[in-house]
């Protein structure tokens, strides 16, 4: 499509409003957060200041922010892929959890493989675990028309039990006081890229950012991405234009699972000494929030994950310095999701903007048409 000067398309206005809505959601939820601090704190003003600037006050806190951010990149990316294909597969939470187990099964082997290979094999194993999980709701929906949302939520409960069984039973290191697997082998560990006062930022952050770029390329620049987005926007249209909806859902689930697998492996092999998650981590839910905030654009997941990691770090600092519970961030997170998902919010102003723009475009066209009539030769010269 040729872009002419002075014209604004409806899509552009919609995009603008998406951004405005995201900004509004973040602002409102932060205000809500301050309100909660006000309710629960005995020194609200200093606590609010801490909440706003805490992660920037020391190197180690900033490093903590980066550590927090890296798993979020992967789960939000996975959700982007799934949501793009209009698949509300919420088993990402369980997939991330299971991937950590299946990769840890390889990672704990001593003298297994040399350094980079060991990690890669572990990650592949993690991906297989995640694929096995994410395929269940996808296949059940395709084959049996089972409600994917409730199915995947039920699956998460099942995997919670399964993980608990694994870590207290077969995979537990009995020589260790807590419930955890054996120590991750040195050859499977990810290198540390920045050590700030004991907070070690690992390579997983870089891998996550690279994956986001790959994810962006996949969704916006490949055939699969185009098909997935078509299915996401209008499944009926996609079906009639010959896109195999089932295939898109399956491939989307596999791709999302691969990101989950890499993410879980990086997180365990980068940050932890042993795999010690006895309950799911919640990163899957965080991924949902970030991908919505990012409008399913993997590149925007990077600032989205940074935002969430920022308020998480703030809440952690507050938890140590005052009597405010960390749950405050999870509450705020849900408000962000609700505000952004509310399509009706600002629908009036958006409609007015679209109408005003259409009128202006029509006027511009009329002017141009008039100009062309006066000077028919001008057009030929331009051409």
């Amino acid at each position, binding site marked *: 499509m040729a872009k002419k000067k002075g014209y604004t398309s409806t899509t552009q206005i919609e995009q603008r409003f998406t951004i405005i809505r995201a900004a509004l959601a973040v602002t409102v939820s932060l205000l809500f957060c301050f309100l909660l601090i006000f309710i629960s704190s005995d020194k609200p003003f200093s606590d609010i200041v801490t909440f706003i600037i805490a992660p920037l006050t020391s190197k180690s806190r900033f490093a903590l922010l980066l550590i927090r951010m890296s798993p979020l990149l992967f789960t939000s990316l996975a959700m982007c892929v799934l949501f793009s294909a209009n698949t509300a597969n919420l088993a990402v939470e369980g997939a991330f959890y299971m991937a950590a187990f299946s990769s840890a099964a390889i990672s704990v082997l001593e003298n297994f493989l040399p350094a980079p290979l060991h990690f890669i094999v572990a990650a592949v194993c993690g991906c297989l675990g995640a694929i096995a999980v994410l395929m269940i709701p996808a296949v059940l929906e395709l084959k049996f028309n089972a409600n994917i949302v409730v199915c995947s939520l039920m699956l998460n409960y099942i995997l919670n039990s399964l993980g608990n069984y694994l870590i207290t039973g077969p995979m537990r290191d009995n020589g260790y006081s807590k419930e955890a697997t054996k120590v991750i082998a040195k050859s499977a560990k990810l290198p540390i890229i920045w050590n700030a006062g004991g907070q070690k930022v690992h390579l997983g952050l870089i891998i996550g950012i690279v994956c986001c770029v790959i994810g962006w390329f996949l969704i916006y620049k490949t055939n699969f991405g185009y098909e997935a987005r078509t299915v996401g926007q209008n499944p009926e249209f996609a079906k009639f234009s010959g896109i195999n909806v089932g295939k898109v859902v399956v491939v989307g689930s596999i791709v999302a699972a691969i990101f989950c697998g890499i993410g879980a492996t990086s997180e365990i092999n980068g940050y932890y000494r042993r795999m010690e998650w006895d309950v799911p981590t919640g990163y899957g839910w965080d991924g949902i929030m970030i991908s919505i905030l990012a409008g399913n654009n993997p590149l925007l997941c990077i600032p989205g994950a940074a935002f969430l990691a920022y308020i998480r770090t703030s809440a952690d600092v507050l938890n140590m310095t005052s009597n405010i519970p960390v749950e405050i961030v999870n*509450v705020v997170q849900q408000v962000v*999701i609700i505000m952004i998902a*509310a399509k009706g919010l600002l629908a009036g102003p958006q409609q007015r903007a679209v109408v005003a723009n259409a009128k202006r475009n029509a006027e511009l066209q009329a002017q141009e048409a008039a100009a062309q009539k006066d000077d028919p030769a001008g057009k030929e010269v331009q051409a």
Partner: protein
Amino acid sequence: MSMISQLLPLIFSANFLSTVIRVATPLILCAMAACIGKQANVQTITYEGMMLFAALAGTLGTSYTNSLIGGIITGILASVLIAGIYGYFNIYLDTYDTLLGIAMNNFSNYFTIFLLFVLIGRKADSSTIVSYNYPIIDIPIIKDIPVIGTILSGQSLVTWFAIISVFVAHFIVYKSTLGLRIRSVGRSPEAASSLGIDVRKTKMIAMLISGVFAGLAGEFMSMSYISFFTKNMVAGRGFIGIAASNLALGRPLYGLLYALMFAVSQVIANQLQMLQFTYQFANMIPYIITIVGLCITGSAEMRKEKQGGKAKDNKKNKKEAAKAE
């Protein structure tokens, strides 16, 4: 095998049935809530959140108002409030229901912990404050009859509410003007609105009614099942209620049956745990059965649609054949 031979006598006992009814109580109430929602075609998964809020508000309500009735009302109001917020965002602000449902559920999960901490300084449970529970109903004469007495007598008041709720829900859906409106809005909003029914308002009313049922279900958890609130105590029961209403296609009487079926599976799971069956696997059973149930209804619906399509095709073919003749 020995486990099964140990399990069977446990299942065929009056105690088992009495436990099933107790465990089924929140599932039945939630299934009724979900049935009314389903009839109005408001597909929400927020019953989980409503129940959780009601559980907390009920317990705190009895403690602060120092009366049982006060707690019951606070709990139901809390649940209705959540239903109202959900309804407002979903029906009036056109918010995508899955996302909204997840967000509201997680919101409830964390906000109840937040409130608990702010109000009584604990995150795990409310066992430190004094709160009232629903009374246990002992029925005078029936109590002494051997099997029936064990099953019927000594159940919580909420359990009786749950049984009544099935008939109330059935009455609302099938015998009242409101129910007719709800069903018409659920089946065909365009037709309903052409008849002058306010579609959004009707959906909202359905949502608020289901909030009352879900509220009772939540109160059962913290005021009867156990005697205080613990974090995340609903633990998927809302989803099981939804699954029951899905299996029942929104019909309350069938919803009761499916809720009982889920309760049976849950009690068997509990019994298995007592017999040294790995408890994590026993815990999975109700969820696995829910998924199987969803698959069965899903494929039944799919078959129905296909048959519907075929029937239409047949009609078309016949018409065309008739024309050709």
